[in-house]
């Protein structure tokens, strides 16, 4: 089981038609993501990092190449509820309380009430939102809202978590805190996480592997294996090892840009 990748992309391409010529959002992307990995996608806007995630989630249809999720097509994987997706914005339903927002996927999947309550309790505990079950989204801070949306993605026990710049709209302090919590959550749950970001420190701090991408056409420039240990206190970001990896990411991003011009 550990040998077959969770996500496997071969020569994956996606071209959007546009008035001023086609946009090559993804161009021949080859990438395998294995079970238990934390893979970050980093690159400037338009490099296809979000598009890649949306293809995995069956929110976009590729125009070329192959992709499997848990050995299935993205459509089958979606129908099987194989993944949880966290969007850039929390996208909580404003008329539902936190617990009922977390219950939403469970209701759709037809889970019984008692079982739902158990899942809600457990996932809210996981994201440190116990005690806020009855709060409405507008009563929570931005960081708490995003945590609630992570709880919602975790609630149905999918082994794969797709996260599209989940902390992009939050301030530095909240972001640090949530990064630490996310790492802890990943260690506890052993989930496979694909994480899109445009922050180099965030990518280096969180990932076991960093995929550096470049725009027009969207493609993979470099894949960096992290040498950092799994247990990472926040101050690991002051070490030389951390800076070395960050440096390599930055070099990759630079290379991508010079290629373009």
């Amino acid at each position, binding site marked *: 089981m550990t040998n077959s990748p969770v996500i496997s992309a071969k020569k994956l391409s996606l071209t959007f038609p546009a008035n001023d010529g086609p946009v090559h959002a993804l161009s021949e992307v080859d990438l395998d993501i294995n079970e238990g990995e934390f893979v970050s996608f980093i690159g400037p806007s338009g490099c296809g990092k979000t598009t890649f995630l949306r293809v995995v*989630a*069956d*929110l976009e249809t590729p125009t070329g190449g192959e992709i499997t999720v848990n050995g299935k097509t993205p459509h089958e994987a*979606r*129908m099987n*509820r194989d*993944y*949880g*997706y966290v*969007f*850039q*914005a929390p*996208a909580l*339903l*404003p*008329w*539902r*309380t936190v617990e009922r927002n977390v219950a*939403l*996927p469970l*209701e*759709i*999947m037809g889970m019984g009430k008692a079982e739902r309550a158990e899942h809600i309790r457990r996932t809210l505990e996981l994201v440190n939102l116990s005690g806020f079950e009855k709060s*409405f989204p*507008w009563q929570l801070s931005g960081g708490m809202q995003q945590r609630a949306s992570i709880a919602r993605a975790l609630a149905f026990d999918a082994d794969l978590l797709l996260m599209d710049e989940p902390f992009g709209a939050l301030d530095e302090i909240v972001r640090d805190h949530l990064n630490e919590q996310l790492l802890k959550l990943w260690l506890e749950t052993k989930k496979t996480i694909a994480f899109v970001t445009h922050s180099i420190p965030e990518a280096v701090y969180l990932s076991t592997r960093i995929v550096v991408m470049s725009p027009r056409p969207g493609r993979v420039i470099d894949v960096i294996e992290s040498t950092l240990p799994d247990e990472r206190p926040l101050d690991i970001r002051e070490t030389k090892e951390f800076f070395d990896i960050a440096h390599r990411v930055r070099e990759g991003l630079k290379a991508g840009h010079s290629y373009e011009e």
Partner: protein
Amino acid sequence: MFERMMNSKLMQGKALPVLIIVGAILAFWYVMAVQLNAPWQLGVYERAGVTEWTNSQFISDTLNQDRPVLPSVHQVAAEIWNTTVLKSPTSRRSLIYHTWITLSATLLGFTIGSILGIALAIGIVHSRAMDKSMMPWIIASQTIPILAIAPMIIVVLNAIGISGVLPKALISTYLSFFPVAVGMVKGFRSPEQIQLDLMHTYAASKTQVFMKLRWFAAMPYLFTSMKIAISISLVGAIVGELPTGAVAGLGARLLSGSYYGQTVQIWSALIMAAALAATLVSLVGIAEKIVTRKMGVRT
């Protein structure tokens, strides 16, 4: 004392501005009543050979004619008092009786119209074919003057044996389904793309997307369009009462009032209709408040 009044609720709340506007309207009404009724009053004096009168007597006379061009406020108030409080509600001379006749048609028409409007919107949002084929007809239906189509509805339905409250209610329906249909199409399409994507990742069915997302997202649109719908339902019911030959209802009071030059009766029916519309719209507003509070909207 004055200071206390300035600081009271009267000044801080909405009461004072409302009172000022009401006062201004009443004053304007009296001024217009004197002016519009003056020519008739002068004629009365001439025929009676009265050559001298005081201003106050003249004003008092213009405001208390039997069939004034514009009845004064207190005449209308007295008429409403006499035909509501002093009459049994089951009497055909009671304004309450006529109001109830109109109200029942209004409510029936509004209910059918709202359900029809919502049903059409559901179809339009879910089917491209319906969107393309129905929308032009729905819009075209509202370009036909209701005054032209109301008698035909009454006559046609009478011919197939349907009479009573239903034909009038159907005229209300004809008017009221439109704002509900248009508003709810907009409302059912109001969820953001990110929310629809979210439902997509859960592999939610169309029905689930509707029941858990579209329906709730459309609530603000529902109440806004129902406020319009209920007030035009009342208009529809009143218009529907005109071609029936003034049997009963506020429309009948308006029509018989104009037959016999009973302007006081016309105006009291008008005021009653306006008060009824205001009450109905505010009832929808109260329902909206209850629902939005339940939906946890920030207050």
